[in-house]
């Protein structure tokens, strides 16, 4: 077995110093080494979006990234979006507009939507569809998800809570 490497990850504002094998996936590192279970394993091949996290502001499929390559980066998972007890406007909008059913895809959906709204606070329906195509909902609740994203965009632009 190849020796473990020491890495440091800042996840949701908290610094972690850990030792991982080079082949350790970021997804397994977050879930099993750090106990951060927001990112889920869905397809395992970068298609479904359930494992989506942000690494230094970029969306990443944590199932297709090695933890050692994230040494020194700033990672955000769905757990890092709320401000204390106050949910992020995107999270609130998903609740208010029924943007989820079983919830497995939701952490990835919310982070992917955040990346969209950070770049474009008022996306058109086509832009939402094109951006969210890499996030699959097998309950097929896409209309409600798109509605939640539109509402969140409005809430974030006006500085009010989602809804």
């Amino acid at each position: 077995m190849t020796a473990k490497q020491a890495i440091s990850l800042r996840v949701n504002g908290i610094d972690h110093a850990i030792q991982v094998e080079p082949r350790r996936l970021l997804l397994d590192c977050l879930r099993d080494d750090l106990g951060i279970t927001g990112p889920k394993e869905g397809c395992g091949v970068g298609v479904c979006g359930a494992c989506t996290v942000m690494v230094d502001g970029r969306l990443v499929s944590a199932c297709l990234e090695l933890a050692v390559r994230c040494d020194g980066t700033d990672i955000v998972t769905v757990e890092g979006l709320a401000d204390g007890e106050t949910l992020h406007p995107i999270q609130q909008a998903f609740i208010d507009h029924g943007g989820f059913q079983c919830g497995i895809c939701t952490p990835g959906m919310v982070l992917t939507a955040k990346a969209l709204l950070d770049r474009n606070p008022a996306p058109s329906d086509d832009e939402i569809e094109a951006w969210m195509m890499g996030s699959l909902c097998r309950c097929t609740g896409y209309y409600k998800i798109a509605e939640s994203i539109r509402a969140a965009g409005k809430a974030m632009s006006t500085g009010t809570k989602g809804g």
Partner: protein
Amino acid sequence: MRDFQLDSPVDKPQTLQLLAAADDDTRLLAGGTGLLNLLKQRLASPGRLISLHRVTDLGGITLDGTTVTIGALERLIDIGEHPLIGERLPVLRDTLAEVASPRIRMMATLGGAVAHGDPNQDTPVALMALDAIVVAESRDGVTELPIAGFYRDYYETRLSPDQLVTAVRIPGDWHSSRFSHKKFTPGSREDYACVGVCVRLDFDDRNRCTDSRIVLGSVGPTVFRSRAAEELLAGKAITENLARQAAQIAANETDPVDDTRGSADYKRRMAGVWVRRCLLEAAGP
């Protein structure tokens, strides 16, 4: 995934030094979206990876005269959104917008997309229609490889084991050329193409075709140009009948495999359909 050693050079010279000493059990890892899938499925199991995630001197998108040069570690999403690409190479911008999903485009790099040698990649299809040059470097020097002859077989390129793709260069002023491309996906939009086509046509002032590129992806062991179809168009006006003949020639040159995107026979027929449509669209008003 099998165990491996991982080296993380910080710049091009360090990378070339590692490559010079590497054996054939070593692979380069850029964005990871291609190779990590192969490792996870144990379709590849190198003992050593050279990861480029710390390398900072292989980026940049620049214009010199009419030549656009794109650093190998530029991410696909950044290339597609760069004003220079939108202004000078809209066909590349539009092609990149259809690669997988925004998340994958945030991870995947141009050098990776080119060097991976996967015939299902969309980007090489457009690059071949643009006569792009793959710039490869080893400690012995820089080599410029036209992308039209770059691919040998499934996941095989003309790169030698010590060579690193450092950039892709696109010479030429394409403002007067006519392009049309299609990524045909019978399933979901972020999937690999069933067939990918990119066509470039140049015309003289009497509307006769002076030069052309007819490039197909996902329907053979490599992305390829149908040179026989291109030759048929030389000196002629593009009529419906001529486009149909050229499309048939191109379709006959395909060598697809059965998979979830269609049977080999279906893909061959669709290749003909989309080459014809792209030719007529590029030649149209």
